[in-house]
């Protein structure tokens, strides 16, 4: 018991160190990176937030959504419309984007939450397809399949003139995402966050303990919608454009794979998943046209060898070292369980 406590503590301090290094690296990145790699990094940061918001549903609560692009696209269109038509500045536009995402979740939540598992998967997919159809048809408002070009990239005023516009925008994104991620951390660490894990592990028991599970799921669906729309708004600024592709279920599918690849139900897993997939896309595509095949192989290999995701790779290696073989046989134990117990163990340490 004592030894385990030590382990947890040293693991935590090494994790804090890692986080500090990552933050510093992100802050100084523009000094080292030319514009193109910096724009890839910007996209990774934005997608990390998007995938984290999906992870709230998929990883923490166990609701497999294949329609999260509905929120990503809603946020994008909200920002683009406000920036182009109303010349609204970034902060109010992003706030409205979040509200739009929340509104969409408020309306659709009661319907999609009647189901779970694979039914939830398909119902969320049809939701995003309906939105896709609306955007496609409502040309006057959304530009149809041409989308809305000409979204101006927001800049931090005190940096303009000091650094280039890509660097400046990168810091805008970093700032917004950092605030969002900090609040997400707080959500996940709260008792509400633990209720989510409980629902994923066994909804009936949590309900039996007196927790309002339906409301909990509704609230987390709304939260995920808000964060997803925020990421979508940033993405519209990043592209300078919003089109129906941002709403497409393929975007949602890709985000879902990022969650799985990184580690569903781990806090930082989505960052790893988004980084690996986007780097693969941009780096591999520079030397071979077959990057989709490689991406597909990565998905399959991940299922075979890393069913718990990249984020749990260090744990697995440690387990293998300690016992000479993997401790939690992934075939029998749901990947999720490991997180739940770790989260609870860590909380009891505090």
């Amino acid at each position, binding site marked *: 018991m004592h030894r385990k406590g030590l382990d947890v503590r040293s693991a935590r301090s090494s994790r804090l160190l890692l986080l500090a290094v990552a933050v510093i690296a992100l802050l100084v990145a523009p000094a080292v990176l030319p514009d193109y790699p910096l724009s890839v990094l910007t996209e990774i940061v934005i997608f990390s937030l998007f995938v984290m918001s999906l992870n709230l549903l*998929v990883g923490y609560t166990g609701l*497999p959504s*294949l329609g999260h692009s509905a929120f990503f696209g809603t946020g994008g269109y909200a920002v683009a419309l406000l920036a182009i038509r109303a010349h609204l500045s970034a902060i109010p536009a992003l706030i409205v984007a979040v509200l739009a995402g929340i509104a969409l979740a408020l309306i659709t939540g009661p*319907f999609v939450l*009647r*189901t779970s*598992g*694979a*039914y939830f*998967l*398909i*119902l969320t*997919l*049809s*939701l995003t*397809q*309906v939105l*896709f*159809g*609306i955007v*496609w*048809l409502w040309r006057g408002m959304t530009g149809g399949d041409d989308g809305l070009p000409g979204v101006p990239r927001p800049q931090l005023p005190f940096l303009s003139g000091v650094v280039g516009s890509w660097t400046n925008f990168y810091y805008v994104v970093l700032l917004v995402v950092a605030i969002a991620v900090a609040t997400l951390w707080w959500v996940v660490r709260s008792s509400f966050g633990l209720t989510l894990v409980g629902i994923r592990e066994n909804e009936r028991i949590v309900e039996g303990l007196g927790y309002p599970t339906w409301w909990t799921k509704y609230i987390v669906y709304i939260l995920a919608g808000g964060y997803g729309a925020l990421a979508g708004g940033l993405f519209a600024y990043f592209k300078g454009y919003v089109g129906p592709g941002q709403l497409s*279920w*393929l975007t949602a*599918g890709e985000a*879902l*794979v990022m*969650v*799985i*690849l990184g580690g*569903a139900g781990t806090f930082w897993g989505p960052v790893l998943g988004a980084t690996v997939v986007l780097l693969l896309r941009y780096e591999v595509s520079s030397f071979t046209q*077959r990057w*989709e*095949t490689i*991406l*597909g*192989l*990565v*998905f*399959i290999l*991940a*299922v*075979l060898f890393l*069913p718990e995701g990249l984020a749990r790779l260090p744990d697995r290696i440690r387990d293998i070292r300690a016992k000479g073989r993997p401790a939690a046989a992934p*075939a029998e134990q*749901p990947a999720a369980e490991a997180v739940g117990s770790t989260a609870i163990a860590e909380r009891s340490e505090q």
Partner: protein
Amino acid sequence: MPINAASVVIGLSYASLLFLISVGLSVVFGLMRFVNLATGALYLVGGYVAWSVANRTDNFWLALPAGALVALVIGVVIERGFLDRLLGKELMQVSLTLGVAYIVADVTRWIWGGDPLRVRAPEALRGSTRIFGSVVPTYRLALIVIGAILAIVVWYLLERTRWGAYVRAGVDDMEMLECLGVNGRRIFSVVFALGALLCGLGGALGTPVTGVSPGIDSQMLLMALIVVVLGGLGSVLGAIVASGVVGMVDNMVRTFWPEASFFVVWVLVALVLIVRPQGLFGRAV
């Protein structure tokens, strides 16, 4: 004359294709809660292989089984290779079958290029036929007949044979079925393989009508998902009825309001699911 025989024929021939790709998806889901997002990829492969065989041999009737068999092989590889690791884990299923779909889409583009390819209908079925006062393509009529025959065969297999009774029992309660001494895993293998075969056959049959090109895989996957949720997961009758409804509605919307064709079927699905989450013929969720 908004609705005439021609539009009915076109709608129903599309419905035949939809039935072929969706019935396997539906029963596989019903049996093992397995979501196969590679369904569209199987359709795509069936179409491309059929195109190649038809071009080499100039024999459409050889192209059909060729397309179906290649899809069957891919299906068996998925099922034998990965399925046991994926049972009950929707996320892993999504990741794996999407991975297969990516690879198939990319490799087929590599082999067959990005241009739409089309197979000519067999000699006997070219041209058109007069029916109820309208002129319709003969091949479309043939598609309806083939679809109807296959629907009856599948229905008979599942509803009137002992083996089919096992399948239906498995959809209701797999554990109970296995307790009674039936090897549910083997039944599932057979269903999965047959589903893949029908998917590939659908792709092969569809090439003279829709052609085959990159992107048709995700389009057909979405249509199959629509049919499956509308009909009710695991129900053959549901797949038959929903294919018909979706095929007809889709075609009608295409005629009157072409831009909205994709949208209207999804609204239909959303409305049905809001009222009946289990679909038209599904059991309670």
